[in-house]
């Protein structure tokens, strides 16, 4: 994380802590932002819908990475927390007729409090036991979503309106893109900055060894719960954005497999890395799409392939996770660093 390219020397602490440490990096980040803004005008609707899904996944994955990657607390309940955000926001807008722009932060806050409650076991148990406690959170929250049908309409689904601003309804992929990308950039910036603060460093101390962290004066309870709070806040925001994007939500959107998807994102992208969360989100959203392309191409040869599509997706998905864990345990982010390092010294690499 704190490796620097050859020839870059820091002489002050300020330089050392800077977000963008080289002019080269600043330039390319600028180019990337311009690209993000131009993208909706050159892309078709299919690409834009993927971009929206990626944007929402980035926020969710960042949230999980703050909890699991920064603070070292394993969570199998992230999908359920996203669901809490989605339902809160949907109910605030549809029942209480609040504006989306107010419902969004409220959904984040409410989810954060739910996250706090289910984070309490982390004060007593950790590692495997915590994973199982969050699994219980996932099952219980999902049960409530299905069975509190007077509120959530259960499995028949809750319709949600797209957000509006100054009379403009964000009801197309193209318009919604600007909302998603705004919040995704905001979430990324916050996460990146969090890493550099006292809180972020405390998270990492807790992750590396919580007893040692406590001995050097870090209040374990405070920081573990704070990690759950921030992470669930992200989940709530992602859930709210998701709800108003898909415009109908059912409990099936927030099952254990969603939690697993998000865990896979941070594993594949790189645990504890902001850039990795983004890579992971892109990878996990595009994987089923690429599989669908392959299945469509093969359907001429094997007509029954369509019936097995979701099973095939599972097989490839499971295998991807396993292979990444065995052969690329540090994720795509690590590979990206390697590629960068290689080209930096090319053609005289050693």
């Amino acid at each position, binding site marked *: 994380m704190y490796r620097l390219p050859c020839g870059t020397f820091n002489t002050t602490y300020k330089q050392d802590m800077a977000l963008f440490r080289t002019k080269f990096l600043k330039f390319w980040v600028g180019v990337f932002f311009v690209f993000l803004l131009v993208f909706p005008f050159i892309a078709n609707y299919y690409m834009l819908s993927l971009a929206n899904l990626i944007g929402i996944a980035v926020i969710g994955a960042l949230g999980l990475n703050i909890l699991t990657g920064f603070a070292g607390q394993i969570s199998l309940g992230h999908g359920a927390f996203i669901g809490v955000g989605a339902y809160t926001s949907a109910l605030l807008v549809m029942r209480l007729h609040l504006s989306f722009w107010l419902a969004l932060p409220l959904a984040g806050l409410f989810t954060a409090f739910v996250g706090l409650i289910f984070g309490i076991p982390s004060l007593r148990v950790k590692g495997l036991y915590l994973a*199982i406690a969050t699994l219980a959170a996932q099952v219980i929250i999902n049960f409530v979503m299905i*069975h509190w049908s007077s509120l959530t309409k259960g499995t028949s689904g809750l319709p949600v309106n797209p957000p509006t601003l100054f009379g403009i309804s964000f009801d197309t992929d193209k318009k919604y893109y600007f909302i998603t990308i705004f919040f995704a950039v905001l979430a990324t910036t916050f996460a990146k900055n969090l890493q550099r603060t006292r809180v972020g460093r405390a998270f990492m101390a807790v992750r590396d060894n919580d007893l040692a962290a406590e001995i050097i004066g870090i209040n374990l309870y405070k920081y573990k719960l704070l990690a759950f709070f921030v992470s669930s806040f992200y989940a709530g925001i992602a859930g709210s954005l998701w709800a108003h994007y898909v415009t109908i939500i059912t409990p099936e959107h927030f099952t254990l497999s969603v939690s697993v998807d998000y865990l896979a994102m941070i594993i594949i992208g790189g645990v504890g890395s902001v850039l990795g969360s983004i890579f992971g989100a892109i990878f996990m959203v595009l994987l089923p799409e690429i599989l669908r392309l392959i299945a469509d191409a093969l359907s001429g040869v094997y007509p029954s392939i369509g019936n097995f599509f979701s099973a095939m997706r*599972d097989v490839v998905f499971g295998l991807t996770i396993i292979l990444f864990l*065995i052969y690329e345990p540090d994720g795509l982010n690590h590979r990206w660093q390697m590629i960068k390092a290689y080209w930096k010294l090319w053609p005289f690499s050693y």
Partner: protein
Amino acid sequence: MQYFIQLIVTGLVLGSVYAMVALGFVLIYKSSSVINFAQGELVLIGAYMALWLTVSLHIPFLLSFIITLIFAVFLGFAIEKLFLRPMIGEPILSVIMLTIGLSVFLRGLVIILWGTETRVFPQIFSETPIKIGFVRISQVYLWSLILSVIFLVIFTLFFKYTDIGIAMRATADDQTAALSMGISVKKVFAMAWAVAAVVAAVGGVLLGNINGINISVANFGLRVFPVVILGGLDSIPGAIVGGFTIGIIENLASGYLDPYFGGGVREVAAFVVLVIILMIKPYGLFGLERIERV
């Protein structure tokens, strides 16, 4: 009252299957500190394998049951060798994620091979229920209970008296000490997975005989978590006690509360118990409390 006892008895049957599956789970955790999220898929594969042999290949049930068990041994070996061996020494998150990946992979494979519709075993036990006192119990239930008790006894004896069983307990107790006594820890890990796959297969066949099987049997793997947490993750007697307890609790909760919630209480009741246990006694009834040092 009769309803209550009926619920208890069926709870015991369910609990005996839980105990079987939990046994495999605890065994893997105890010897290699790996938490196996794919236990439910092992149950699924065992059930489908036996079904396929009996129905499609017309092999007598008993023979196909034995072939399934042999297949499960090799499946366990293969999983350990291919997927778990490279993960030795990796952080907990990676190992958890690996078994989750494994479960997704195996589930997809089962769907491709055998489809998703519910299938039932051909009638093996007679349908007339047996009356014990005033409780009516169907023969399938009775036989499941008897079979699982037999298997539980066999495994308890296996751990107590055979060389491999003792080696496995030694490894579970202290890997380094076991290594220095000449025990091959690699072999023990492989054996743990083989035994886990076997008990899962037995559980799967029993479940298949009771309710028929479809892909949702895999969720059974998740419902084993409350069992092992209640008993203690690293305790074999805990798995057995926990299995019966959770089986009965689930049945009672579902029998009395389902009308109020519109079904599905069975799945969630055990997890509510789990959260309570984690808050009060996180290492379970018989689990070893770990003391940490920096």
